């Protein structure tokens, strides 16, 4: 029996008929050839979120991002004119990586007045112009103005920094994010600057971890022991239903209840949560800042009084989770091969005023890690068996609608890319359903 009302069609999935309801092939998660197509069709074409403006507080602040899936490294920098720009992280002289320390594959951040190549000392200003060439007269008719850093399209939306390595892209970030993005505009992201960031190497295709975080159907089972025993049995008996789902173009969202912040009965949470008034859903008491009441229209779309969290899946690899108690979380999934990726989870809180608030946030962050470790390891087990191809298609239920959408969208990007190249659909263009 449904605990929350579904659309007139009888299910969330059938409300979006393009998604279908049949079993879904996971060939798209185990094929090296398909992954190579995804790199070109998706990661080299779409907007990718690479961080927040708070990481670039002043002129000369910079950080690098390794975009293995898009086949490049980029450097983000705030110029003397306060503008945030992105460049391919390559020296124009002979191709050395421009910004790095000690380990060429590691990401770095810092503040500088200019970039100087470690190899032959070519220099570039914060706007990317080449300002110095070592032994310039030795070159032949070299015009420095033609040797600036190669720009990458870069935009800031609500304080989030985005890049698109496709120079032919003509869509703004706001247009790309569509109605789901528009519904978040005005949320006080800029006041939530207390950051915890976690990173993990995960032995699965990038889409499998999005799958794991785009449904809560698994939560009462995989995370059963996070609640006290009686409550856990009750939760498994009830199962999971979301308040609402939305599918908009390549993006989707799930809105969920969140009875744990604070719980109706305090005895269902563990002792330290009772004592600190905090847990997985964050500190139970909302911070005293503007912008949380009323919320932007895109949050809590069902208007539920038991609303707890909205999870947005912004294609391809960025998730944004806004929690009712007034904090947010981002997930990034950076593919490194068809069956490996780097996962990043970043928690953002309003800076604590005192030790109590600080320790409450610590509990939320530690709880996040405990859950994510369980999730991450399960994925390697899934990847392993998918690769056996002993079973090739899988039934997805109505609470897994965003997984259906993700895999369909990724396949559509690959199909469109091949179409543009005039390549007929091959086995690599994976069938949507059996």
């Amino acid at each position, binding site marked *: 029996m449904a605990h929350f009302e579904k659309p007139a069609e009888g299910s969330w999935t059938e409300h979006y008929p393009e998604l279908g309801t049949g079993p879904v092939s996971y060939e798209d998660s185990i094929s090296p050839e398909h992954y190579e197509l995804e790199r070109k069709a998706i990661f080299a074409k779409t907007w990718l979120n690479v961080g927040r403006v708070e990481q670039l507080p002043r002129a000369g602040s910079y950080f690098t991002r390794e975009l293995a899936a898009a086949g490049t490294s980029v450097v983000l920098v705030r110029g003397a004119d306060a503008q945030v720009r992105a460049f391919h992280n390559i020296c124009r002289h002979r191709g050395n990586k421009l910004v790095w320390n000690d380990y060429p594959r590691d990401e770095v951040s810092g503040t500088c007045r200019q970039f100087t190549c470690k190899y032959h000392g070519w220099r570039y200003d914060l706007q990317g112009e080449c300002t110095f060439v070592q032994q310039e007269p030795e070159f032949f008719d070299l015009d420095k103005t033609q040797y600036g850093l190669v720009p990458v399209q870069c935009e800031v939306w609500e304080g989030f920094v985005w890049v698109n390595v496709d120079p032919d892209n003509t869509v703004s970030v706001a247009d790309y994010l569509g109605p789901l993005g528009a519904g978040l505009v005005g949320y006080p992201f800029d006041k939530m600057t207390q950051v915890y960031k976690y990173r993990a190497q995960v032995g699965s295709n990038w889409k499998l971890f999005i799958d794991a975080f785009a449904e809560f159907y698994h939560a009462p089972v995989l995370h059963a022991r996070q609640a006290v025993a009686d409550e856990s049995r009750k939760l498994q008996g009830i199962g999971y239903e979301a308040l609402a789902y939305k599918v908009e173009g390549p993006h989707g969202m799930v809105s969920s209840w969140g009875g744990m912040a604070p719980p109706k009965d305090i005895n269902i949470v563990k002792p330290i949560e009772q004592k600190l008034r905090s847990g997985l859903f964050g500190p139970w008491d909302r911070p005293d800042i503007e912008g949380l009441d009323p919320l932007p229209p895109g949050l809590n779309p069902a208007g539920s009084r038991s609303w707890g969290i909205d999870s947005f899946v912004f294609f391809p690899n960025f998730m944004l989770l806004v929690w009712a108690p007034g904090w947010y979380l981002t997930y990034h999934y950076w593919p490194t091969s068809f069956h490996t990726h780097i996962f990043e989870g970043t928690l953002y809180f309003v800076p604590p005023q005192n030790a109590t608030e600080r320790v409450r946030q610590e509990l939320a*962050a530690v709880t996040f890690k405990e859950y994510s470790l369980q999730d991450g390891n*399960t994925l390697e087990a899934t990847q392993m068996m998918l690769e056996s191809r002993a079973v090739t298609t899988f039934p997805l239920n109505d609470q897994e609608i965003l997984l259906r959408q993700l895999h369909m969208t990724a396949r559509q990007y690959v199909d469109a890319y091949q179409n543009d190249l005039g390549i007929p659909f091959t086995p690599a263009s994976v069938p949507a359903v059996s």
Partner: protein
Amino acid sequence: MPVFPAEFADLEEFADWSLATEAQRYAQRLSSSMAELQAFYDAAFPRLEEILASLDRCELKDLSEQSTRLLWLTYSLVNVSFPVEVWRQPRVPDSGAAAMDVVVEPAI
């Protein structure tokens, strides 16, 4: 020289849990026995409200060295609450070789 403020002298024997980073706290948790985790938890958990009441008397940025060390101790208490209250083992069950590293955390 005591590590913590005088009113928390009873916690001095657990001063090795006063660690500045999550990586240190998590590593110490994994290298401890359940008996050690339980002993730390049993000593620190009942004092949690008094610790926070004491630390809340001034702003975070103005904490003394001893108070800061006490605050770090509470972070460790939070970290070991999972093995003690939930997992009954130091490691997250079924997490195997999986690791999740903190790459950014608050300065205090």
